[in-house]
């Protein structure tokens, strides 16, 4: 019985018992719940996913008709959630980086303004901001009948922004290929030029050449008349504008609210990250003759990045989960679509299980991606 005194064996043993116990509790809950449901004659299972949805979703990132299945409706909800959180994360990070650096500015006015911005956004619940932005949009902008005509084909009203839509009639694939190929070439050129600069110590025009590689093929294709674009201009219908591309106020209010909330969090993370970089780095950069801006960009920020990434992961997870507040202002995200489904099928447990599963899976995906990036930029000790 010597193995009973083996620390490793005991550690594994306790862990296995703990896991087994959690699994048992989970299974008991599941079987009790499904037993009770069956006893009360309540429908269970996921068959409802293949039934026709029967309702329309006006704002959808993927095509959707009322005759499509409930499963596809939920997919539309997922796509809408991903769309708005991804855009909010991108815009919020760019804005937050600027504000975070401004917080450390030697200009007192700029630094204080950035401080006020951060504190105002961080200390009021996001839901209230969403109501505020949405109310501002629908109360201040005129109804669609008196839409503001900003530019030819561009209208702004409380039903959103309508712009002409570009429908590529011919050469779409060629244009796409040119852009992708150009981007790949630009990336390769930039890497090569950086290597060369590091090796020779002489600056070259790598950036400019890369930009040309990105744009010139597409431009040539355009000039050679390889692409035909049909512009779909919005026209005044009976009640509202038809045709064109609609950016709806629900989406804008949500994107705006989420992006601002991300930016405030990112600003604080960036500030903390920069301040955590040793002062000696600034002094060494100054001694080498780098300006403050260059020191920030080339020396301090890259080191701050290592500290910034882990808390940034949290911020991205939060924005993704916060996007479920969309339901308050009428943006059809995953939760809103699920709610409608729940009402029509009455199968709340299954529907909630689906959307919790989706949030969990996507959150874990974000974490894994950020952890990979973190490992990539982390300091490698030699």
């Amino acid at each position, binding site marked *: 019985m010597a193995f009973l005194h083996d620390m490793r064996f005991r550690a594994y043993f306790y862990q296995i018992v703990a896991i087994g116990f959690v699994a048992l509790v989970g299974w008991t809950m599941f079987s009790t719940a499904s037993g009770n449901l069956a006893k009360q004659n309540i429908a269970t299972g996921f068959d409802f996913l293949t039934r026709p949805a029967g309702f329309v979703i006006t704002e959808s990132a993927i095509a959707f008709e*009322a005759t499509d299945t409930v499963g596809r409706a939920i997919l539309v909800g997922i796509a809408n959630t991903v769309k708005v959180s991804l855009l909010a994360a991108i815009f919020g990070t760019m804005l937050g980086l600027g504000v975070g650096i401004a917080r450390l500015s030697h200009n007192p006015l700029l630094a204080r303004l950035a401080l006020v911005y951060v504190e105002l956004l961080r200390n009021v619940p996001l839901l209230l901001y969403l109501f505020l932005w949405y109310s501002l949009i629908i109360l201040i902008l005129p109804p669609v009948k008196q839409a503001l005509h900003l530019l030819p084909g561009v209208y702004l009203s409380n039903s959103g922004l309508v712009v002409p839509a570009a429908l590529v009639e011919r050469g779409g694939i060629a244009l796409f290929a040119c852009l992708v190929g150009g981007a790949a070439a630009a990336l390769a050129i930039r890497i090569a030029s950086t290597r060369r600069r590091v090796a020779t110590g002489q600056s070259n025009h790598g950036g400019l050449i890369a930009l040309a590689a990105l744009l010139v093929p597409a431009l040539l294709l355009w000039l050679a008349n390889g692409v035909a674009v049909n512009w779909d201009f919005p026209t005044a219908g009976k009640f509202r504008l038809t045709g064109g591309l609609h950016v709806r106020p629900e989406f804008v209010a949500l994107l705006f609210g989420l992006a601002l909330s991300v930016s405030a969090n990112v600003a604080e993370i960036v500030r903390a990250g920069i301040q955590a970089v040793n002062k000696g780095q600034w002094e060494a950069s100054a001694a080498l003759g780098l300006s403050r801006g260059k020191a920030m960009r080339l020396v301090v920020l890259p080191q701050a990045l290592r500290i910034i990434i882990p808390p940034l992961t949290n911020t991205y997870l939060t924005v993704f989960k916060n996007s479920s507040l969309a339901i308050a202002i009428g943006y059809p995200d995953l939760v*809103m679509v699920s709610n409608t489904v729940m009402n029509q099928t009455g199968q*709340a447990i299954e529907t909630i299980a689906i959307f919790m599963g989706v949030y969990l899976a996507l959150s874990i995906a974000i974490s894994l991606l950020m952890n990979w990036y973190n490992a990539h930029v982390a300091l490698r000790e030699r």
Partner: protein
Amino acid sequence: MKQALLSICAAALGLAAAGSASAATTLETVKARGKLVCGVSLATPGFAAPDDKGRMQGFDADICRSIAAAVFGDGDKVEFVPTNINTRFQALQSGEIDVLSRQTTHTFSRDASLGLDFGPTVFYDGQGLMVPKSLGVSSAKELTEAAICTLPGTTTAQNISDFFRAINGKFELVVFESPDENRAAFYSGRCEAITSDRSDLASIRAVANNPADYIVLPETISKEPLAPAFRQNDSQWGDIVSWSVWMLMAAEEKGITQANVDEKLKSEDPDVQRMLGATEELGKMLGLDNKWGYNVIKSVGNYGEVFERNVGEGTKLGLTRGPNALWNAGGLIYSPPIR
């Protein structure tokens, strides 16, 4: 860690116990508790909304009171639980509430798949559309291409989609979780029209700055018979809910009102005598006091009184009886004989 495990264990046991605790009938549970727990809407003027003294008022609330009066002889022995539109059925299934009186439409799939049964229809409703008068529209069919605001709940989103699919028209659907945001979006012109049950539209119109600026279009695009719901497989409780409602209807038919119910105790009409418990012992058959009918009418009045007091023409909602008139006055309200 050990304590955490213990508490999980306790929670699991509690859950298993809750699963098997449904042995007592609903009537026994309600009587033992000393009050009825009734699920109503959050705040829908005319159906269920607290007045300035905090007392729950409305059509649905009075249905709850009539059931409480049948059981306890006192219509105020009710605890009103505001239920969310998404979780109302779960609240009933789990036993959190005894009866759901919440503008709930009786439909096949709800009846067949949600483990509940419906009582008699208390209100014949239908989905309609409301528009500002200034829009110059007189029929829902003219609303193609319009934006329409609605709540995610019930079957409204599906009905309106079906309606426009049938006339092959496109429209923009804007769905709000909160009734306040829904109304605000409609009043600000974000949507040309708002759709809901007609009774609900009347309630929305009643709180507008100028109710006369809005009209409800003539089309009724769906049938929405609103009925109280209770858990299935409890016939005794189902009978109590159903007959409390029918008592209200029968009372109107017999001309018994809250004011004259004491006089009517001396009535010579054998129907009235049976209803008020002066003769025979009908109440006992339901497991109730023999004066249950008297108690119901004494506490809320008859069906007509409940209707007029909460949603009738004298109220802000201003609804006419329409299909909710008695069967002998051209409506659909009909009680089986109480004998």
